[in-house]
């Protein structure tokens, strides 16, 4: 009997392995920056280029950093969701305006909504590289001590925000 059961078992294991493997999203490359201090940056703000936004400015609070650009097509799906979510004021959302034109970016926010407390302008994409950005939009959750705790790749849906991102944010906000 084992003569037939053993190959069947091996076949079953292979099917299970491939089933899991194929249901993973190859686009979602796990970031090595999770649980590491967020990379430092100091960039001009989008709305007020005279002012700078830096990592130090954001220490002491839990925040989301959303990487966006006016040329990014899937950001158009995400933006209304983020804007609506930001009205609930559960967590501050900062933007990283990645490789964009200032005028285009400002116009884009008027059209699709502006959920950000402020957006930092990363015109040449260097800060993006430091943060391991490879596909816009991406959303990072950063804790009070400036450590990246979670990264969401691709446009976040309301479901992602309420079931994945917010539970982490609430937990971090509860930390001293």
């Amino acid at each position, binding site marked *: 009997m084992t003569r037939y059961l053993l190959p069947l078992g091996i076949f079953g294991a292979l099917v299970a392995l491939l089933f899991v493997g194929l249901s993973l999203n*190859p*686009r979602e*490359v*796990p*970031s*090595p*920056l999770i649980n590491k201090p967020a990379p430092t940056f100091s960039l001009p703000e989008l709305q007020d280029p005279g002012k700078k936004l830096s990592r130090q400015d954001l220490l002491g609070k839990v925040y989301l950093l959303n990487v966006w650009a006016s040329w990014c097509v899937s950001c158009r799906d995400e933006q209304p969701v983020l804007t609506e979510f930001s009205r609930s004021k559960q967590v501050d959302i900062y933007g990283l305006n990645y*490789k964009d034109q200032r005028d285009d970016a400002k116009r884009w926010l008027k059209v699709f909504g502006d959920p950000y407390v402020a957006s930092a302008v990363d015109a*040449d*994409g*260097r800060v993006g*590289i*430091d*943060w*391991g950005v*490879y*596909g816009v939009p991406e959303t990072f959750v950063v804790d009070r001590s400036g450590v990246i705790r979670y990264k969401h790749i691709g446009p976040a849906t309301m479901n992602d925000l309420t079931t994945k991102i917010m539970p982490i944010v609430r937990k971090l906000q509860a930390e001293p």
Partner: protein
Amino acid sequence: MDVKTVLYGRRGAEGAETNINRLMQMPDGSTPAQHARLKYFLCVLCAAAAILFLSGIPQAASAAKLDGIDLPEQYEGRYKALIDQLRCLVCQNETLADSEADLAADLRREIREKMVQGQSDKQIRDFLVARYGDFVLYKPPVKATTLMLWYGPFALLALGVLIAVITIRRRGRRTPETINDEQHRQVQALLRRQDEGKNS
């Protein structure tokens, strides 16, 4: 007896010549000679296309790799070798050297700058791994999480060989089936009958 007789039998030998011509005729009705000319022409055409293709590609590729910027010549070999081992994260099956993606161009810029600053290949690789993970390397390092990736195929091969050896050994140990005297006589009678049939 000549070859044609063997091939076609005595009666068919005379017709063999025409048979060969019929066999050689091309589906479109052209003769072998016409066909050879066509074949030659196609070969020349293919060779020309290959030369054009091969001469065009490296130029296009190296232009993309250097992004229109002059990299000091002493770095060029190292630079090209390095970007050939790194993966573009946007189009994941392309190297940084091949990719046209914006991010790949930015990363190439980053690599060029670091090379000119005097950083080693290892320092540059570490810089990228720190940001994008081992995935950025086409040749991932051997560590606990990649053991299966590196040695899994060999383990499976060894398992296969083991199973084959066990199976063959077991089969060898089985005693061959024997026949009794009556069966033996029957076999010999059959063989004898066959021999007689051949001779007649």
